[in-house]
């Protein structure tokens, strides 16, 4: 830990970080565009300049140097004395802001970034209220640079964060800065558009409204959105995300910084993969089968129906004929409640880790880098909680097995009752399951969409998307990460956690934190994991 003095206040900071990073972490609001902790330093925006004390070359006496230093490029040194709160620094910030706005079109009313734009924020805080520019502005072109992104170069401040992102993080090099001086602009090589699996991040790193997400384009003013910290369920990496919603509609997902898991990034698959939560075809009400027909039942009756069916079944066929298939899309809390409930009725029931959707191989970024230089990984396991569910099945004692083995054993008639949980965004039921369902006398299916399983089930319980639930996922590395509820469930539906809570005989409202506390008595992995995911150290 180095001790440095900023504006006459002594702070402790991590060794080797730039002064800018140390100041931001200690609570200073230092304007900056080109600096991003995940990218290399270029020190080109000149907004973060500071004054520094150095020994006089002749006398050795410490004094303020009559020039400014870029704080993003100056690493902290023990005993360093710097200041941002001075006339010279403020003058520089003011001049820089004036310069950034020289060619800016000031089209905030029609700009998607307005409200979360650092040109707006810094103009208000560090800039001038008027522009002295009277000459004709240079208007940069608006470009369609790829399947998911627009580039409005008239709004660009040339921080080159996006170019450095494609060079250093994605390793795909699509973006470049062409021309020189006032006519410099971000571009792609014609015919080689920005198109890589993590391209959405260039929109996030852009501090202004220059890079725009086509998916979010003109959809919503950002001040109407409220964000909820969450965890991406797209793969077992478990990226920390923020769910931005307005009036119960999710408009976009943004990554939050989470060192060691996703740093500052997320992939497009996760970013744009939330559309299914607003699908009209989703199941919303519990239904029971009566002969060839199905009939909606009241939620209040569900605990009784479920308990009755399973108790009757166990009495008739014995408790080893029951299987519970825990989906890796479930949260740890839900899986724990369900396995406890089933084992309560049928102690010898088999706990099965559900179907794990796997696509291709792990994709590492930068593309083609060595194993030790990997900055971001998209894992092939397209579910968030395989490890958590496996752990819960294992710790619950009794028999456990994988999904393939379950299918094999169930086909040969080992089970006659099952509770199968789905909850996958895409069609998932394997063909072999048609043989399995024929063997099952009692079948409870908990899923988001109707499929062959729900058609054969004696009781169908609608599952909710992760944004409607709260709980925690355990990622591929065994890290338990809690997520919060972002939107309300659909009319008529109920959160999975809530009905599992009620079925298990608990009274009151389900809360992920509460259930996690109960779990922590048996499993220390779930103790003290914090109420909310870690706070971002760097907002933009």
């Amino acid at each position: 830990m180095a001790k440095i003095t900023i504006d006459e206040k002594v702070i402790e900071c991590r060794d080797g970080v730039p002064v800018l990073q140390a100041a931001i972490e200690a609570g200073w609001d230092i304007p900056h565009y080109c600096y991003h902790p995940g990218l290399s330093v270029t020190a080109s925006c000149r907004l973060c300049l500071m004054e520094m004390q150095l020994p006089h070359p002749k006398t050795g006496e410490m004094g303020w140097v009559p020039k400014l230093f870029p704080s993003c490029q100056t690493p902290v040194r023990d005993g360093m004395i710097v200041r941002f709160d001075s006339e010279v620094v403020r003058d520089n910030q003011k001049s820089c802001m004036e310069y950034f706005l020289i060619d800016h079109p000031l089209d905030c009313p029609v700009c998607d970034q307005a409200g979360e734009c650092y040109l707006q924020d810094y103009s208000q805080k560090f800039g001038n209220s008027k522009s002295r520019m009277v000459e004709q502005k240079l208007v940069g072109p608006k470009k369609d640079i790829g399947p998911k992104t627009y580039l409005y170069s008239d709004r660009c401040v040339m921080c080159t964060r996006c170019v450095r992102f494609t060079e250093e993080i994605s390793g795909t090099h699509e973006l470049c800065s062409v021309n020189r001086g006032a006519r410099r602009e971000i571009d792609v090589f014609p015919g080689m558009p920005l198109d890589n699996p993590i391209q959405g991040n260039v929109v996030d790193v852009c501090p202004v409204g220059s890079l725009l997400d086509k998916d979010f384009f003109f959809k919503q003013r950002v001040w109407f959105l409220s964000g909820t910290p969450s965890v991406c369920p797209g793969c077992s990496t478990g990226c920390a995300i923020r769910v931005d919603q307005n009036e119960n509609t999710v408009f976009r997902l943004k990554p939050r910084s989470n060192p060691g898991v996703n740093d500052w990034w997320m992939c497009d698959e996760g970013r744009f993969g939330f559309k299914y939560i607003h699908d009209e075809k989703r199941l919303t009400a519990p239904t029971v089968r009566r002969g060839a027909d199905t009939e909606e039942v009241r939620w209040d009756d569900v605990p009784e129906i479920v308990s009755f069916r399973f108790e009757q079944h166990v009495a008739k066929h014995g408790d080893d004929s029951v299987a519970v298939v825990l989906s890796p899309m479930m949260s740890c809390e839900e899986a724990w409640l369900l396995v406890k409930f089933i084992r309560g009725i049928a102690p010898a029931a088999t706990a099965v880790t559900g179907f794990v959707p796997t696509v291709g191989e792990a994709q590492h970024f930068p593309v083609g880098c060595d194993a030790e230089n990997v900055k971001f990984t998209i894992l092939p396991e397209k579910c968030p909680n395989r490890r958590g569910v496996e752990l819960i099945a294992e710790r619950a004692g009794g028999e456990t097995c994988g999904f393939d083995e379950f299918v094999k054993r169930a086909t040969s008639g080992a089970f006659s009752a099952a509770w199968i949980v789905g909850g996958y965004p895409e069609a998932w039921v394997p063909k072999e399951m048609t043989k399995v369902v024929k063997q099952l006398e009692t079948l409870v299916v908990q899923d988001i969409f109707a499929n062959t399983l729900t058609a054969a089930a004696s009781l169908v319980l609608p599952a909710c998307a992760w944004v409607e639930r709260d709980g925690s996922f355990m990622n591929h590395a065994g890290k338990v990460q809690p997520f919060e509820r972002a939107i309300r469930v659909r009319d008529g539906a109920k959160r999975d956690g809530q009905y599992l809570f009620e079925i298990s005989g608990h009274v009151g409202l389900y809360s992920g934190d509460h259930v996690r506390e109960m779990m922590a008595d048996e499993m220390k992995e779930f103790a003290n994991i914090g109420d909310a995911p870690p706070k971002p150290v760097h907002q933009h």
Partner: protein
Amino acid sequence: MAWKTIDRNEPAFDADAPNVLSDAVREKIRSFFPRYETKQAALLPALHVVQETLGHVSFKAMTEVAEVLEIHPSQVFDTLSFYTHFWTHPKGKKTITVCRSITCELLGGREVLDAIKKHLGVGEHETTADGEYSLVTEECLAGCDHSPCMLINEKLHKRVQPADIPKLLADTDNDKLDMPRSTLFDAPADVASDGASVTS
């Protein structure tokens, strides 16, 4: 819906267009590799070689240079577009570069430029119909002591007067250099001090 945008997804050339860089040019670019630690560092010499051979560096040529240097074409485009020296579209046989900086401006540089425009019937950044001359202006040619001055290819013409223009442009030898040209961008054969083959 968006405002009118330029579509950058459209390729600048046909996918099945024939290669524009000959094997000899590629070999010459490769001969610069031993000079530098990385292949990417040979980008500027490579661009000079291409411009000297083809007269300009087209988008097709950029992708081929990128292929030889094992970098992304956008990196070639990035560097190339920084320098006004490089042309991305065909230019005339000879390039006239007129100084538009302050000394020449004061001593009649603008009149020289106007005379050239009038004589050739082209504007700035344009090429004559016969493909003989391209006309550009540049900030300073470092010949302020001989103002107004202009370049024809690499030959500096000093104290040019508007009246001299027709005669000067009619002269076929008006780009002939008085002294030998710099060999900086000709890869010397003996650059590899460790005895390795220069073409490796």
